[in-house]
Structure formats: structure tokens, C-alpha cells
């Protein structure tokens, strides 16, 4: 079946640094990818998505890169802030989303 995995369970950065969170997926037919942010005690919050016909998409302070050749997805957060501290999940699927295990981002002042 389809699976996604995140490379690092925890990423620690300093405030103001850029953060890069990585994700690998197994199904080369995957067509749609989403990044979610989950804060403690809350449900996942949509950050950004990308279709497989694109290799880059930018939002406010965030960029998602998709490398279909190696089945790799990354989320880049510019000028990371303490409010960015959370667990980040990549997910794939159209209706039934398959989530990775998550990377905890810790931002220190």
C-alpha cells in the first residue's frame, strides 16, 4: 500500500533560521500532496499543497518542493518563528489521505 515517511522525528532550529522538513513517499502514482501543521491539542491545519504536475509551489513564508524522480517532498519555512513550533505532517491521497509519522519542529529564541 501507499506510505509516506518523514526523515527526522525532531528538528531544532533557531528563530530566524530557515527550516527544511523532508518526506519520502512510496507510490510513484501519487498525484497530490499536502503539508499539515499540528499544534498540541489541536487538529491538523492545512499549510500548502502541490499536485504532481508541479515541482514547486510557494505560499506565505513556505515553499513545497516535489521531486518525483526520487519520490521526495520537502517543506521549507523561511525565517522560522516560535509560533512555527509544532508537528508537521506530509500526506498524500485524493480523498483518503495517508499521513507520515510527523516531524516535530522546535524553534528556540
Amino acid at each position, binding site marked *: 500500500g501507499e506510505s509516506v515517511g518523514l526523515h527526522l522525528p525532531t528538528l531544532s532550529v533557531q528563530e530566524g533560521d530557515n527550516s527544511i522538513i523532508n518526506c519520502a513517499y512510496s507510490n510513484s502514482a501519487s498525484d*497530490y500532496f*499536502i503539508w*499539515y501543521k499540528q499544534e498540541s*491539542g*489541536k*487538529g*491538523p*491545519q*492545512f499549510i500548502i*499543497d502541490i499536485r504532481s504536475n508541479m515541482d514547486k509551489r510557494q505560499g506565505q513564508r513556505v515553499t513545497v518542493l516535489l521531486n518525483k524522480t526520487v519520490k521526495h517532498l520537502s517543506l521549507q519555512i523561511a525565517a522560522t518563528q516560535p509560533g512555527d513550533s509544532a508537528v508537521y*505532517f506530509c*500526506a498524500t*491521497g*485524493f*480523498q*483518503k*489521505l*495517508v*499521513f*507520515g*509519522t*510527523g516531524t516535530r519542529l522546535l524553534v528556540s529564541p
Partner: protein
Amino acid sequence: GAGVSQSPRYKVAKRGQDVALRCDPISGHVSLFWYQQALGQGPEFLTYFQNEAQLDKSGLPSDRFFAERPEGSVSTLKIQRTQQEDSAVYLCASSSRGYGEQFFGPGTRLTVL
């Protein structure tokens, strides 16, 4: 505007009890999803509705789990004869389309003693 709401936020059940978890999706959203999230893990798909039709229930772990959305809006996830391994956060999400961005509620944390 109002997001997805879930109730109760916390539920403690004794093993063997039945529980019912409620989800109020965003008004007008035709698609509704249930996920189960174990501690330290990502959400896992349980089931999906489009309006009142349950189109996919492949993720329900056993026949003790049952979900319904009789009028195409509010949904209830019922777990019969709860067991300790059912302890998790149950997340509900809704979408205005059958695909794409899903908006999640805060979840119901179920603890089975």
C-alpha cells in the same frame, strides 16, 4: 466563520462500554472524513462520506466501529464494546469537494480504561 467542531473533546470509557463521537462539519461541506490518531503517530483514515453516502469504510478496524451521516451534515462515529487499543484521538475533517484540502476539527481524545 465556524470550523469543524467535535464533541465531546475528551471521553473516558470503561472497557466494554459503547461510545458515540460527534462531528459537525463546516456548513455546506459535502465530504466528511474520520481519522484515528494514536499517540506520536500521524492520523490514519477510517471512513469517508459524500453527503449521506458512506463511500469508503476501508479503514474501520473492526465491525465494532460504525459511522453514520444520515442527513448529510452531522456525523457520528460509534464504537461498541470499547477496548484499550481503541484509545486514541479521533479526528473529523470536512471538505467542500471530494478531494483536496481537508479541514480538521480539534479531535476527541478517547481513553479506554
